[in-house]
């Protein structure tokens, strides 16, 4: 197995863990955590491809990862703000109980 | 001879390492430096606690500790023995694993920061290309340790203290980073050794330290405010306000774990003062060109101790702020000043040499300071206080 394949496998595993968590957990915050894990797995892919790709000096993968980190930070802030607002409104963060569209 | 004095620690390390086989030499050298840092700063911490207590006492017309040993200088030994022999109490409902990990994480992250600080000519553990970023990454991780300590104790005071501490550290991290970015903009490097070298030359015997420029001076002031808040020192010591929160996030810690928190707090103060010294006060460079024969590490450590003295002085002078005052100050005064300072630094960089840029940059910063300061002063309405009692 080449080193790149190892990194890609780790990233795939992490992505699947995050996906499984996001799909199965009840708590809205834990769903967000799962999404963060998926984003991070993607970042690992980007960096690994940058490192073992043909033109690392072009910095494409690295730049992609850096922008992705910045976007993830914004996403986390807005997502958690939404969760707090939902908690204030529905007094719960359990997604199974939030099955009505009526406020 | 002068060179030998200057490089004595580097030479000592090389000499000690030379006894080992060549393959191990690099690792052994790093280990040796780490051991030196890990021994030196706790010793400095012990000394500082005595000086701090004596200095504060003098400020308050007292004498301070003077019983243990000559002039009370063995006091930290007594304190150390006491905290080592005390019972280590973990509350019954506490989260034992997190409760144990918090002080360890704090001390580890705090000590990691020293890895990139140049403490003298050629005296830096790892000269990272992204040294400043590494330092701030480590500083940011220590916030998590504070939260872990407060949450795992299962104590309202601990949790409140931890939340205050984390909120405060997050808010003041923004001005801390922004005030340091100015230096990076002018130097064009994140490497701390390069930053020191950029400041290590002289005109008419005076050094080119960044504090002696308008943007550097403003940046240094903002940096000093932010570091005081970041290390939870008075007047920003709300997280451990003993009058309202017992001791904040380390209320439930006793014995050696408490000592670790105490150590972590002081070592963080040393490392962040060291960073301030490196960024604005020329690191290990001498203050006058005719003093360059004095070993560089002496300059670094004397500047470090001077900033510690200022920390203690401020602690002895200023009363504790309120939470809303703290946040208002961070977001409405320090942050705008830092952002303006970034622009001023850019202006300075592209205006070229000459007296004009001095006048323009100083005028902009001074005007902003006065304007924002007036706004800040007008906002505080002083009047008779109203008290509300529980019914």
């Amino acid at each position, binding site marked *: 197995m*080449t*080193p790149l*394949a190892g*990194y*890609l*496998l*780790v990233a795939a*595993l*992490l992505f*699947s*863990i995050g*996906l*499984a*968590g*996001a*799909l*199965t957990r*009840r*708590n809205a*915050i834990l769903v*967000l*955590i799962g999404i963060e*894990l998926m984003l*991070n797995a993607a*970042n*690992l892919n980007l*960096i690994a491809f*940058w490192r*073992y790709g043909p033109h*690392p*000096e072009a*910095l494409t993968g*690295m*730049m992609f990862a*850096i*922008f992705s*980190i910045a976007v*993830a*930070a*914004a996403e986390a802030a807005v997502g*958690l703000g939404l*969760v*707090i*607002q939902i*908690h204030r409104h529905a007094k719960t963060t359990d997604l*199974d109980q939030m099955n009505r569209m009526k406020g | 001879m002068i060179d030998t004095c200057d490089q004595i620690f580097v030479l000592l390390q090389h000499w000690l390492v030379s006894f080992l086989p060549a393959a191990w030499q690099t690792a052994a050298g790093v280990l040796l430096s780490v051991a030196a840092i890990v021994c030196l700063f706790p010793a400095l911490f012990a000394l500082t606690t005595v000086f701090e207590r004596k200095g504060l006492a003098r400020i308050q017309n007292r004498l301070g500790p003077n019983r243990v040993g000559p002039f009370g200088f063995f006091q930290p030994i007594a304190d150390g023995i006491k905290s080592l022999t005390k019972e280590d109490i973990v509350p019954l409902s506490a989260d034992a694993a*997190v409760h144990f990990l918090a002080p360890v994480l704090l001390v580890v992250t705090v000590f990691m920061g020293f890895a990139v600080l140049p403490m003298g000519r050629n005296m830096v553990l790892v000269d990272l*290309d992204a040294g400043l*970023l590494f330092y701030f*990454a480590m500083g*940011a*991780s220590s916030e*998590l340790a504070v*939260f*872990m300590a407060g*949450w795992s104790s299962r104590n309202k005071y601990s949790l409140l203290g931890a*939340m205050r501490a*984390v909120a405060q550290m997050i808010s003041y991290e923004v001005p801390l980073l922004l005030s340091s970015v100015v230096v990076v903009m002018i130097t*064009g490097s*994140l490497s701390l050794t390069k930053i020191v070298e950029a400041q290590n030359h002289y005109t008419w015997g005076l050094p080119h330290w960044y504090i002696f420029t308008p943007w550097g001076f403003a940046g240094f002031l903002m940096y000093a405010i932010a570091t005081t808040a970041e290390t939870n020192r008075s007047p920003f010591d709300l997280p451990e306000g003993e009058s309202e929160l017992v001791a904040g996030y380390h209320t439930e810690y006793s014995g050696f774990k408490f000592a670790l928190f105490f150590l972590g707090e002081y070592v963080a103060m040393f490392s962040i003062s060291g960073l301030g010294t490196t960024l604005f006060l020329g690191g290990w460079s001498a203050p006058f060109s005719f003093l360059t024969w004095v070993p560089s590490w002496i300059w670094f450590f004397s500047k470090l101790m001077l900033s510690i003295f200022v920390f203690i002085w401020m602690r002895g002078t200023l009363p504790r702020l309120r939470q809303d005052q703290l946040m208002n100050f961070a977001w409405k005064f320090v942050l705008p000043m830092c952002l303006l300072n970034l622009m001023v630094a850019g202006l300075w960089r592209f205006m070229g040499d000459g007296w004009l840029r001095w006048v323009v940059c100083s005028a902009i910063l001074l005007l902003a300071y006065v304007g924002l300061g007036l706004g800040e002063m007008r906002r505080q309405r002083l009047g008779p206080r109203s008290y509300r009692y529980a019914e």
Partner: protein
Amino acid sequence: MSIVFYILAALTVAGGLAAMLLRNTVHCALALTVAFAGLALLFLNLDAQFAGFAQILVYIGAVAILVVFAILLTRGSETPKEGVYSRSWLAGLAIAAAVFAVLGWAVLQSARVLPHETAVPAVTVQQIGVALVGRYVLPLEIVAVLLTSALIGAVIIAIHEKVGHEKEEHK
């Protein structure tokens, strides 16, 4: 494949698994930081110094703290008594397993054509900076606008609407 890689991969995956499996929400958040730290170390292992430190600064220093704050603000720090998995957990698990199977199959199938050990790219922070304000200046500006709007948006979403609240109480 060095031993360091295996250790870091195990740390990261263990952190991720713990973040998704533990019952207590705060423990999950702390496990998440372990996963983040493992990823940062993997980045360093891939000679991406800048990305690694940025990962620590942003994820451990900001996102993890944000998550923890959100947990405490939504009173999620107590261990829930009933189940922590949703009713459709089996379907979710199946989907995730299928995704992993496909991804793993794709990686293993293409392992032959993937490049082997290459030379360490010598990239300084200065180069990254020059690229950021040179070739990638448009994305940088867009990210700046995005971050500002996210800041304002998060504040507006999370702000406590005092006026509306009082009106409701008066009714």
